């Protein structure tokens, strides 16, 4: 039986959203993630639902804020939500900033099966 989770995905790049969705479908095995996409920080408040979303995939660089801003907002709503930061590139400094807002993990988007496994396994093990 496959597991299914509702996840908030905050990402402004349409191509990236499509690519991640395709990767999840192709490499996601028996764990199904249903993504609700917010393309900006300001959209998050209208799309996020405490009762629905068990995890958030948050791109670090957003047009109207940083991933940490979104994380702080979500943590205020639900202290147990799994927060996965995504970026093409993480530095030590960014990882340190992520830990301050209690980001669960930071993953560089390389769209490999391993990258998808880390996302699905992390959400399934919460």
């Amino acid at each position, binding site marked *: 039986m496959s597991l299914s989770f509702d996840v908030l995905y905050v990402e402004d*790049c349409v*191509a*990236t959203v499509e*690519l991640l969705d*395709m*990767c999840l479908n*192709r490499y996601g095995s028996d764990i199904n993630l249903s993504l609700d996409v917010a393309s900006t920080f300001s959209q998050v408040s209208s799309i996020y639902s405490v009762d629905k979303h068990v995890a958030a995939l948050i791109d670090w*660089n957003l047009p109207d804020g940083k991933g940490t801003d979104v994380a702080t907002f979500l943590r205020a709503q639900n202290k147990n939500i799994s927060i996965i930061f995504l*970026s*093409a*590139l993480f*530095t*030590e400094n960014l990882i340190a900033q992520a830990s301050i807002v209690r980001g669960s993990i930071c993953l560089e*988007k*390389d*769209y490999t099966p391993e990258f998808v496994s880390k996302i699905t396994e992390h959400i399934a093990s919460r």
Partner: protein
Amino acid sequence: MSTEEELLKVQKQLQSVKAEYEEYTYAVSHDLVASLRQIEGFSKLVHARHADQFDEKTKRHFDLIVSGAIKGREILEALLSYSRLSTAIKPSTEFACTQLIEETVTQLSSLIDKTDANVSYGDMPNIVGDFTQLQQLFYILIHNALHYRTPECSPIVLIDVQEDERQWQFNISDNGMGMSDHLIGKAFTILGRGVSDKEYTGVGMGLAIAKSIVSLHGGKIWVTSEKNKGSSFYFTLAKDIQR
């Protein structure tokens, strides 16, 4: 304005330029890496879905798209690593060089096994510097010694050290493919490669990074080499490094 005030002003300007440079480097690298990974990611998915409908020529073209994107990303990551050397310096510490070499050899163990190589070294001193950077230096030089081998024989890598009053002089020698005289001149340049990608993969940044690390540790690096006989890389590290 007093000398102290002027110095303080210059230091603040330097900090500001450094922060601006780091921000610029991150932004450019991030955006380019993101684009290259998209090319790679979409190409792989299209290939996985539709490869059975491609003729051989189209399959080869798809492989070239993916390998081109991977190569571009590798070059970018190497350039980023190079650019960060002088901005991400950690305080110097004293540590056992033996420990550093042991850890490096462990990191390279699969390549050592694959090539049936022998890496040997004698007594090593305690040295002073940035452990991470110096480990990267040894990694690059030992990796090169293993990578640029001749097909005929297994790599033999010898690590040796001598000292004088002010510095340590290390030597990492191998029995690999060596270099002709005209290639030695560009060995330490950025993206300088003396061999084709087909024969030996790489981006040509390793020795440029090695040179920068040695320079940041108050030393010099040079090489003696003979084609098809092997190379000896020498570098010095200051005993009393002040940064």
